[in-house]
């Protein structure tokens, strides 16, 4: 009897605890903006009991656990939430708000005035592949000329950004300035960039307002980052109408060595493709480079790159003062370049960068019987340290030194200067909230030659409006020492100065990007003076000094779309520019010849899988640019023709004897627009010769064979 009772009591106890032991938990999961979060994981700690939230954020589950417990809610991109909960069989209703995890979502990128092409950053507008597949000649600078902010200047090399001359843009490789990134200059004939786009994994093209880490560029900087370790050992052969090249890359576990060499001769090409230029000996050059990379640790990388090139050419220019005579022009040039740097992350949150680079250029020009030579030796060293301070900010500081030994000679006359430039910089990147970030910095520079020091504040702010769009603002002071041509004559100059004010709105969606940017640049202390070069015109001779000034203002618009048309990627850029300056030998304020009010570009690419070919098209239109006419009392009052160019290219992927190969074909100026850049005048102004592109149409093809494994697997 007693036993039965106890058993019954135990049984009732057991049953009731089974039934009464369940607690129902339900509710809704949202973010701070009240939007529901579907697929969040809601569960009791140390138990299997739990559920995922539905599309509307609601959830509901029952648990057998009892007593004091911890409820946890986790969702990717948000901080995990936990709270104590008493499981006493009474239903619980909980509306839970999760907080965003800033580190997961990705920090906002400060980007006023810059285009970045890389894989590292999510919010980029360009990819490294874009640089290779845009433009008809595989030159980085050609690709950049399809972005807003750049001007189309067909008769000379360089990037002309927002009313600035080519010398106002500096090219940097791995944080260090490259003195001569282009092949040697020939009058009215543009030269190519020296460095193959294949060397670089990332590009930051800043059209203004750039970081305090960089200086000596009144308008913009192009920062190129070299590749780290290559993916595998391979060899490659390049065959082009202008010559042959080959390379070999050897990869070990933590290091790699690459060698590259090429011989280029445009002679045969010019025989098939007649040029307007009167060549005597077409450009011929021989070049080689070596590249060494060593991954010192998980976070450390040591790089060393060296290249050399030697070339010569000769041609005839019509002598407008004594037609039909021609001037004979011969150029021989040598270039040697070294860039070595080391990067590492130490003690968890100190990032160290140290680099040294040297560039040596010798250019010997012979014009009839006159000799005009130029020799440059340029050393630069840089040290940058970055440290995290607080959870939402990091500090960057460092210094750089540049030394330029420049010698210029004309027959027996010889000029030389040696300049040492020192700079220090300090910059803080602060993420005030998840949606608002700022970069505040200062750069100070000293020129030994000018015996002057400056302070250049730089500010940049980014404000995130929504998931995809952002408002950016930048302000900065930028200084630059005057051109070497001026420094040979006088040291009585100030640093040239430009103040930038930039405001932009950008939308970077999954497949579409839109950007509109307005800017105002105020130039002051621009170098003025008359440097006597042939031909002489009746312009007043101006003494050397820093009284030049000017302004540039405008709006740049960019739209990129990779989704609307199947397998098609296109972008459209438009620039409006209004600029005037009084510098060098200008008698008054005038719009310079490297500026024009309207520039428009369309770049489109389409991949056709069935024939594994990428087709590309680039169309550019620009209004006419000012040119100097000695007969016009208004200085730079004449305008050239409107410029138009349609170029087509195709890259076909195939296999040659089992090796991965790319066949590249391009035609520049397909429609044969008769473009005219301006005129050269005789000294008395009565005769003029048009400055035209070197050929009406340019045909180019290349075969790039990659030897070794073809399979990406």
């Amino acid at each position, binding site marked *: 009897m007693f*036993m039965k009772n*106890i*058993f019954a009591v*135990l049984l009732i106890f057991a049953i009731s605890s089974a039934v009464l032991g369940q607690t129902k938990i339900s509710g809704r999961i949202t973010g701070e903006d009240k939007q529901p979060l*579907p*697929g969040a*994981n809601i*569960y009791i*700690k*140390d*138990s*299997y*009991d*739990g*559920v*995922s939230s539905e*599309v509307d954020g609601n959830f509901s589950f029952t648990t057998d656990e009892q007593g004091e417990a911890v409820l946890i809610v*986790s969702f*990717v*991109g948000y901080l995990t939430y936990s709270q104590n909960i008493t499981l006493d069989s009474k239903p619980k209703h909980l509306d839970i708000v999760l907080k965003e995890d800033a580190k997961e979502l990705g920090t906002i990128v400060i980007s006023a005035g810059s285009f970045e092409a890389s*894989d590292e950053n999510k919010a980029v507008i360009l*990819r*490294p*592949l874009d640089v290779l597949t845009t433009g008809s000649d595989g030159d980085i600078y050609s690709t950049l000329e399809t972005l807003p902010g750049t001007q189309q200047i067909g008769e000379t090399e360089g990037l002309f950004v927002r009313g600035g001359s080519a010398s106002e843009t500096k090219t940097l490789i791995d944080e260090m300035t490259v003195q001569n990134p282009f092949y040697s200059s020939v009058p009215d004939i543009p030269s190519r960039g020296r460095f193959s786009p294949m060397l670089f994994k990332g590009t930051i093209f800043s059209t203004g307002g750039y970081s305090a880490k960089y200086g000596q560029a009144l308008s913009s900087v192009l920062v190129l980052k070299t590749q780290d370790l290559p*993916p*595998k050992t391979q060899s490659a052969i390049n065959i082009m109408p202008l010559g042959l090249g080959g390379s070999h890359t050897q990869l070990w576990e933590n290091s790699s060595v690459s060698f590259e060499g090429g011989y280029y001769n445009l002679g045969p090409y010019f025989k098939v493709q007649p040029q307007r230029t009167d060549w005597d000996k077409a450009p011929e050059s021989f070049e080689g480079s070596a590249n060494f990379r060593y991954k010192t640790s998980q976070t450390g990388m040591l790089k060393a790159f060296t290249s050399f090139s030697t070339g010569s050419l000769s041609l005839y220019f019509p002598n407008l003062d004594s037609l039909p005579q021609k001037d004979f022009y011969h150029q021989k040039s040598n270039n040697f370049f070294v860039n070595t740097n080391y990067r590492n992350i130490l003690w968890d949150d100190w990032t160290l960068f140290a680099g040294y680079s040297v560039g040596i250029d010798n250019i010997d020009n012979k014009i009839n019987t006159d000799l005009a030579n130029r020799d440059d030796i340029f050393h630069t060293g840089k040290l940058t340290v970055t440290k995290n301070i607080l959870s939402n900010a990091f500090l960057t500081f460092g210094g750089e030194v540049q030394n330029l030994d420049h010698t210029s000679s004309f027959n027996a006359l010889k000029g030389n200067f040696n300049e040492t430039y020192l700079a220090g910089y300090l910059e803080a990147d602060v993420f005030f909230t998840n949606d608002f970030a700022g970069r505040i910095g200062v750069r100070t520079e000293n020129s030994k030659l000018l015996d002057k020091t400056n302070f250049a504040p730089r500010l940049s702010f980014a404000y995130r409006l929504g998931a995809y769009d952002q408002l950016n603002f930048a302000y900065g002071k930028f200084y630059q020492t005057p051109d070497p041509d001026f420094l040979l004559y006088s040291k009585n100059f100030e640093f040239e100065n430009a103040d930038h004010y930039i405001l932009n709105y950008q939308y970077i969606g*999954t*497949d579409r990007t839109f950007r509109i940017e307005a800017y105002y640049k105020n130039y002051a202390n621009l170098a003025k003076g008359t440097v006597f070069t042939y031909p002489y015109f009746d312009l007043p001779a101006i003494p050397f000094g820093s009284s030049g000034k000017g302004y540039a203002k405008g709006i740049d618009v960019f739209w990129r779309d990779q989704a609307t048309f199947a397998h098609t990627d296109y972008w459209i850029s438009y620039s409006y520019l209004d600029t005037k300056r009084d510098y060098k030998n200008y008698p008054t304020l005038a719009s310079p010849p490297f500026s024009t009010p309207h520039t428009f570009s369309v770049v489109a690419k389409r*991949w056709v*899988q069935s024939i*594994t070919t990428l087709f590309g098209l680039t169309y550019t239109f620009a209004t006419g640019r000012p040119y100097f006419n000695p007969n016009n009392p208004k200085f730079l009052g004449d305008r050239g023709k409107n410029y138009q160019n349609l170029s087509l290219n195709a890259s076909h*992927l*195939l*296999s040659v004897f*089992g090796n*991965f*190969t790319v066949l590249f074909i391009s035609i520049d100026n397909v429609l044969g627009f008769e473009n005219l850049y301006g005129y050269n005048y005789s000294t008395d102004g009565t005769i003029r010769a048009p400055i035209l592109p070197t050929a009406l149409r340019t045909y180019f093809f290349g075969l790039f064979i990659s030897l070794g*494994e*073809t*399979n*990406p*697997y």
Partner: protein
Amino acid sequence: MKFIISLFLILLLSDSVFSQDKYESGMKINLAKMDECKNSNDYLKVSNSFERIAIAEKDKWLPYYYSALNCVLASYIDSSKTTKDIYLNKADKYINAADSLAPENSEIYTLKGMIAQARMQIDPMNRWQKYGTEATNNFTKAIQADTLNPRPEYLIGVGLFYTPQQFGGGPTAAKPVLEKSLMKYNQPAPENDLMPHWGKEQVEYYLKQIDGEK
């Protein structure tokens, strides 16, 4: 008294036996649910269920493995590129947790290769260099860790099947790899039916496609 004591003992014992059953039945229930998933939300729910088991058990790699696998399956179905990458980020987290519990594991290397492959498929033109290499390295390690695992060769074969011929791919290149995989699937199955055994149907499907094209 004896009866009450033995009742207590039975209750105590059944608790520990029950927890082992609890893990096995929890895993089996969710493995069955995987076959019923119709859209990416379903796969994510199953992934979350496996995550709960993983967190509760603390020292078992298999539930983390299945959490990651379901995220990859969700990424295949979903159409938006950004969402695919988000699911694969989740998969990375889970497979790394599995890896820390069971290093040098063939199935874990296989799944890491699968994730790299899925990332590559999102943007092949821009990503094949980085993720193609990562996928190959992981599949190679998977085969080295367990030569009888059929899944690495299945994934390599499918990858080759979809790779253009100019890159060394195509059905002819895929066939021998898939046949090798099928041979390994036909070996006697391991006893533990919680371990991964997926993929055989897909290999047979692709081999049929290849033979059909001839």
